[in-house]
């Protein structure tokens, strides 16, 4: 594998290799010395055109545990605001020694453009491109599901698991990446959200969809994944009011209590407590939110290893 751009282009074997490798890396975290020499001499650049502390830190932690070197390119106050193109930025970074470029960009397809343009030879990891994809987030979600529902996660698929993804689906790269990866692994995905926030072409996706969260809860899903509500999409002039959203789509304690005993609650973070998820639910024993964060480092290690382990 040269790049990791989307989960849509991952086949079952590639996805399982990434997840199994991530499991082995997770074991390293518990060692006396939680560091591997594997990517010595490899330089990873975080190229972030959008704010994201968590994803950036998670990639940094992953690179550090594999002994890679890290450079961070901040957009604020950088030459990008002076009008430098993506091409020039990427070529500059490569000239400084970048082997892997982790890119987050507000435009869908930015990572793929960088990978396929021929501008650079570096491996590209998509860390979120517009409303398109965020593959490492979906991988860490799949890893979390596998750990929860399989006593031996290695090699296991998600066959038969039902996952409800709730919220602003249309603007969510997390939802999109999860739809493709989870269905590739055999899970059944239901998308839940108000009509204005479900994508137009949702009938063509390999999923069910519903406007009614209570219906989705009563169908007894194994996992409910709450998406972060972006406040700028609510309020004046938008299609749905904040109050209506919270009433209809918030995972309240009452709703969570109706889930089967061993169902889990997921959230990609950062959470708006009291908006899409109630505080008591986020802190309950159902919540696997911190497992997701932990697994994020492991799947990013796996991605870096898959892309560069053979070419250090």
């Amino acid at each position, binding site marked *: 594998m040269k790049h990791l751009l989307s989960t849509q282009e991952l086949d079952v074997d590639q996805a399982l*290799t990434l997840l199994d490798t991530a499991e*082995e890396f997770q*074991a*390293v975290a518990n060692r006396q010395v939680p560091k591997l020499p594997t990517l010595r001499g490899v330089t990873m650049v975080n190229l972030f055109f959008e704010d994201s502390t968590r994803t950036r830190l998670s990639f940094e932690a992953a690179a550090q545990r594999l002994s890679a070197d890290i450079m961070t390119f901040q957009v604020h106050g950088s030459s990008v605001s002076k009008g430098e193109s993506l091409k020039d930025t990427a070529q500059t970074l490569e000239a400084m020694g970048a082997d892997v470029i982790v890119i987050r960009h507000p435009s869908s397809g930015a990572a793929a453009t960088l990978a396929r343009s021929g501008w650079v030879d570096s491996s590209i990891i998509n860390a979120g491109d517009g409303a398109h994809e965020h593959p490492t987030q979906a991988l860490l979600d799949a890893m979390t599901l596998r750990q929860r529902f399989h006593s031996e996660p290695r090699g296991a698929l998600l066959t038969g698991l039902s996952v409800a993804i709730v919220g602003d689906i249309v603007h969510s790269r997390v939802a999109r990446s999860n739809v493709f990866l989870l269905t590739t692994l055999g899970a059944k995905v239901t998308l839940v959200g108000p009509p204005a926030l479900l994508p137009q072409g949702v009938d063509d996706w390999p999923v069910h969809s519903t406007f009614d969260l209570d219906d989705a809860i009563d169908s007894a899903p194994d996992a409910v994944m709450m998406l972060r509500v972006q406040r700028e999409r609510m309020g004046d002039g938008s299609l749905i009011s904040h109050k209506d959203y919270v009433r209809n789509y918030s995972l309240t304690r009452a709703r969570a209590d109706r889930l089967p005993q061993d169902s889990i609650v997921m959230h990609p973070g950062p959470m708006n407590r009291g908006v899409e998820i109630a505080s008591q639910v986020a802190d309950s024993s159902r919540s696997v939110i911190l497992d997701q964060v932990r697994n994020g480092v492991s799947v990013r290690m796996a991605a870096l290893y898959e892309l560069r*382990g*053979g070419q250090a």
Partner: protein
Amino acid sequence: MAARAVLSESDIDRTLRRIAHEIVEASPETSALVLLGIPTRGVVLAHRLAGYISDIAGIPVPAGSLDVTMYRDDLSTGGHRTPAPTEVPGGGIDDRVVVLVDDVLYSGRTVRAALDALTAIGRPRLVRLAVLVDRGHRELPIRADHVGKNLPTHHGERITVKLRDVDGTEEVQVVE
């Protein structure tokens, strides 16, 4: 490709029993022994050796696995490798006598990687190396303490170790 059998199933079993005796004799303290096999077939051998040593010494001897993939120096040329599990027995390896177990000793690079991998897990009192076959052609200053069979080979030959637990059949072959 001509394959020549050099160890049969009964040869392998006899050899492992002999190595088990050697390990017991060479160990200052049998209760400090931990056997760590290098995946894939080294792990099977480590568990078998631990069983024989337990029979000889009359005490349980822990065995586990040590994956060295992430410590290799040939990741860039050896093609893609997926890491295998590392399972260290509950007592850990600090201050223990660790015997690394592998099926074939060749360049010594795997063992070099294993020594690095060990340092990330703890600090053994002693580290020893037991192999079923030593085929020569070392590229590093590494030697085995316990050898099942010395097999002088050409570079062009391959040693194939088959074990029942992994391969369904059991023998060692030289493939030319």
